[in-house]
């Protein structure tokens, strides 16, 4: 791969990750192009970019997933590179090819590496051949529901139904028994089709009490391939990660190094280039199994940035320009980083998404805090896309300090107008099982009751005072405004008398 200079990056994504990529581009003096759908004209990433191109209607299939329109946007703006972010087209080899064929650099791995890892069943076969341990499951995607059902019985419930083209929890269902199989299979199939345009599914045995630990890898075109430490991602709801941290409490140094080396081996086996993540399940006996490799930047990449001090987006761009990754010995990890994903959703109603208008937003600040957000006060969170608003991170020298810092920052986070999971996140971070570090992917389900945030009863009186004073101020302001317009003190008094009477009726006791 000859060295090439990147001068203008089109970010083929939306929301916080588009903003994240644009920030680094700006720091590097690289121009940026945003793309947007109908629903996203007012989106934060559009006004942060130097140029913006409308690519279609609100449903992602008609805009962010339309390869022709995205490539066309590169041509129109003269972008010489595309950053795909995560999700959408980021792991689509046809997109990477179409971009390269248009003479534009794709900031990501070669399409062949994506293919080797992208179809999850092929990846599992490749990894098994390379001597990497894998979870028992179907060797190929299964076309037929009856066949899948038979295999599920053979593997034994619970099983995981997964999208062959999948990632990010979309099209992924845990099935505990045969009564639910048909319903979950069909639901997974529709989600997979809608999220990836590919409805192929496969099955995996569900391991009991597994921990989800992933290794960040980085490879260049000169044979360099390094690992940048792990991220523990076992706090998940609806098969989606909510809290991620590094280092993981489940790993000691020899296990960490062993997993790092296996991850590098996995990346080398598919001639990888750029940023990638090798996901593992670690069981109660501290055995680890290859789960999948995500051939893109992960949502939770800032966790690794905080412990290593590296800017992974900058490194991606440098590698795409023909640069080299640092030496393994040069990677120093220090302290503890932890991320919480702030979602527009209602934990009390099964994490139901809560789209709508953000009427007020105030984000936390202070020592060791980072907020990667894609929203602003006044933005209407659309119903068409992922409900994540922001990723809030804290760094500190120790795990306890990092958790305390993140809780403090979450307390400062204020979002009005829509329901968020902020209180749920605090309850999760404060939970003894999380604090002890001894938790697995069953954490959210097992402690569901504990995690429904209950307000501190000693503060109820203060809350009542606040609400009553606010109502009082509104009512008296109205009355005074009325009096001012009437321009007469007597009018004010009579208005007051009326108001007073209505309050007596309202409350019953004056």
């Amino acid at each position, binding site marked *: 791969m000859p060295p090439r200079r990147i001068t203008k990056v089109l970010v083929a994504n939306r929301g916080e990750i588009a903003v994240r990529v644009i920030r680094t581009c700006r720091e590097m003096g690289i121009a940026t192009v945003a793309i947007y759908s109908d629903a996203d004209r007012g989106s934060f990433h559009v006004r942060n970019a130097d140029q913006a191109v409308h690519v279609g209607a609100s449903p*992602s299939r008609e805009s962010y997933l339309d390869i022709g329109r995205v490539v066309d946007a590169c041509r129109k703006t003269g972008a010489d590179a595309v950053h795909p972010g995560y999700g959408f087209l980021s792991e689509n080899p046809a997109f990477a090819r179409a971009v390269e064929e248009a003479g534009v650099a794709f900031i990501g791995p070669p399409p062949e590496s994506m293919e080797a890892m992208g179809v999850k069943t092929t990846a599992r076969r490749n990894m098994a051949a390379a001597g990497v341990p894998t979870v028992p499951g179907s060797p190929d995607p299964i076309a037929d529901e009856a066949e899948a059902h038979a295999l599920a019985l053979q593997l034994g419930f619970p099983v995981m139904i997964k999208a062959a083209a999948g990632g990010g929890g*979309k099209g992924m269902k845990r099935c505990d028994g045969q009564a639910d199989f048909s*319903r979950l299979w069909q*639901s997974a199939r*529709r*989600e997979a089709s*809608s*999220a990836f345009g590919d409805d192929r599914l496969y099955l995996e045995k569900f391991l009991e009490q597994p921990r989800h630990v992933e290794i960040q890898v980085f490879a260049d075109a000169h044979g360099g391939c390094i690992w940048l430490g792990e991220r523990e991602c076992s706090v998940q709801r609806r098969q989606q990660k909510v809290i991620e941290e590094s280092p993981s409490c489940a790993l000691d140094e020899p296990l960490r190094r062993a997993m790092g080396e296996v991850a590098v081996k996995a990346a080398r086996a598919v001639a990888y280039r750029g940023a990638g993540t090798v996901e593992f399940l670690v069981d109660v006996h501290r055995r680890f199994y290859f789960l999948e490799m995500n051939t893109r930047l992960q949502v939770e990449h800032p966790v690794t940035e905080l412990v290593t001090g590296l800017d992974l987006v900058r490194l991606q761009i440098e590698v795409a320009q023909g640069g080299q990754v640092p030496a393994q010995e040069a990677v120093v990890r220090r302290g503890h980083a932890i991320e919480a994903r702030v979602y527009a959703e209602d934990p009390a*109603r*099964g994490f*139901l*998404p*809560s*789209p709508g208008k953000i*009427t*007020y937003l105030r984000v936390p600040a202070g020592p060791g805090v980072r907020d990667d957000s894609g929203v602003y006060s006044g933005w209407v969170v659309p*119903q*068409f*896309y*992922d409900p994540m608003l922001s990723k809030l991170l804290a760094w500190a020298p120790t795990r306890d300090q990092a958790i305390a810092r993140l*809780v403090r920052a*979450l*307390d400062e986070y*204020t979002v*009005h*107008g829509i329901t968020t999971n*902020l*209180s749920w996140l*605090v*309850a999760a971070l404060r939970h003894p099982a999380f604090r002890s570090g001894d938790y697995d992917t069953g954490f959210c389900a097992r402690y569901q009751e504990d995690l429904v*945030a209950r*307000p*501190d009863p000693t*503060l*109820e*009186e*203060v*809350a*009542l*005072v*606040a*609400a*009553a*004073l*606010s*109502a*009082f*101020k509104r009512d*008296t302001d109205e009355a005074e405004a009325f009096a001012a317009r009437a321009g007469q003190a007597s009018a004010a008094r009579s208005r007051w008398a009326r*108001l*007073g009477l*209505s*309050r*007596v*009726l*309202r*409350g*019953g*006791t*004056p």
Partner: protein
Amino acid sequence: MSATGPITYIALLDGGSREQAVEVTRVGPGLYRVRLGGRVHEVDAYRHDHGTLSLLVDRKSYSATLDERGDRVRVRLGASVFDMEIPDERRLRLRRAAGRFTVEGKQTLTAPMPGKVVRVLVGPGAEVAEGQALVVIEAMKMENEVRSPKAGKVVELHVAEGQTVEGNAKLCAVE
């Protein structure tokens, strides 16, 4: 400045199952006397930017944020969130008359959020069990099942597969 008030407000807590009276008197600029649960508090209130109230209650400092949506108000103090309603007199009477929430009689199910109906799992007249999934709505790339609140029969069906619905749109009714 002479005292203003008192005005007594009734706050509904826990979805209306609890009531609490709060009597407010303004005794000076930003200074209030608040009677609550038989106790009187001296309160100094300073209104900051949008929805934020700095409260000094008996000299303790609190920062409360208020997310107001009509009568409903969500008060947040640190990680504690209190949902309450301060209805006017007419609505308070209605709320009191409505009594406790029940699943007796016909239950109409509505869309919990705007989205697309991807599956209708039952037909009109179908016998359904409590907790059975009736309609599947896709929003924000995730599927969400709308389940029956009770055992009964589907007596109304308002939507078809593929249809786009607004939040709170009627989906079906079970009796």
